[in-house]
């Protein structure tokens, strides 16, 4: 990950922040850094100047594999025809007020 010279662009790291204990980590943005430790420090200075989080993840941007917008239809299609996965699919007898 280390660049050859100081004047070359440093690798991009995506930053994820956990706002409070118990919350999931959310994407905050990205930083440039020479290595993981440096990325964590830059992420703290850039995205957590006001106690915005209790935990940070940094991930080399190049290591992320993402679905593409072109996939959007076919890739997520299998979920479309399975209405029985939702509770609204099922009828409850009228006499039952609280289920």
């Amino acid at each position, binding site marked *: 990950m280390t660049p050859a010279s100081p004047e070359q662009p440093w690798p991009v790291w995506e930053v994820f922040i956990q706002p409070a204990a118990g919350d999931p980590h959310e994407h905050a943005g990205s930083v440039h850094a*020479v290595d993981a430790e440096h990325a964590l420090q830059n992420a703290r200075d850039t995205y957590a100047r006001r106690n915005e989080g209790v935990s940070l993840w940094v991930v080399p941007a190049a290591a992320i594999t993402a679905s593409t917008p072109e996939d959007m239809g076919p890739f997520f299609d299998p979920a479309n025809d399975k209405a029985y996965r939702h509770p609204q699919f099922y009828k409850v007898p009228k006499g039952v007020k609280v289920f």
Partner: protein
Amino acid sequence: MPPSPAVAEDPVRLAEFEARIAADGSIEPKDWMPARYRSQLVRMMSQHAHSEVVGMLPEGNWITRAPSLRRKMILLAKVQDEGGHGLYIYCGTETLGVDRHDLVQQLLDGKAKYSSIFNYPTLTWADIGAIGWLVDGAAIVNQTMLAKASYGPYARAMVRICKEENFHKRQGYEIMTTLARGTPAQQAMAQESLNRWWWPSLMMFGPHDADSPNSDELKRWGIKRKSNDELRQRFVNLTIAQVKAIGLTVPDPDLAYDEATGDWKTGPIDWDEFWRVVKGDGLCNKERLDARRAAHAEGAWVREAAVAHAARRAAGD
């Protein structure tokens, strides 16, 4: 304005894209977008990022001369925020396929634009108040709109920035309030500063709608949701009450309240001055670029040390 690069867009995709924006949809980095949407965003976002970075300079001028430790800590934090804002927006711009390194180089080479407001000098301590109150206040009006921009990474950066700008505006107004309630000399300092910053602050919103060639396209694509004149009017309406509350006056003999619209109408803006500063002939254009280049050069050892340290760690030293 130069003609837009002739890119023949796929009419079907363009129609889908515009329908999505019309339905208030959000565009994400991997989505198809017209080349012109991408280039307009790169232009606008990189200028915005450069403005945040250059914006550190007029205020940095007063860090060592802040009148108390409290003011000094506040100013340090504010200037650090501006650097952070630059980084948020550079990060957003990079999602469009450009590299921050190249954008920074364009700034250092004097090829990039940034907001002209930062080419005015900070002559007195009151100017730090005026910048926080008026310049950040104007920026909030603009950025609150941009927080609803159609491009997701830009809008998200703006949400983050708007949260922080409110502190900037409050601390500036507090400085002005303190001076305006102080000795006659302090009151005069506050008024003199307002006199210098008022018109340049109004110019921050850019040319009148009729003279703003990019506006129609930016609005159609949901990058801007309001026009320059609408935003400027909103800023004036918000600010006049704040001016009156601390007993100052704006340097505009034509200022008048319009009962029918509820708007404060200002006198004519000196667009000759605006274009002079945009084209490089402001009081501090050269000084700002020289300072930015010097800071970049003086930071070289930090970049070298970071790379050397990482290399040693990687080698297991």
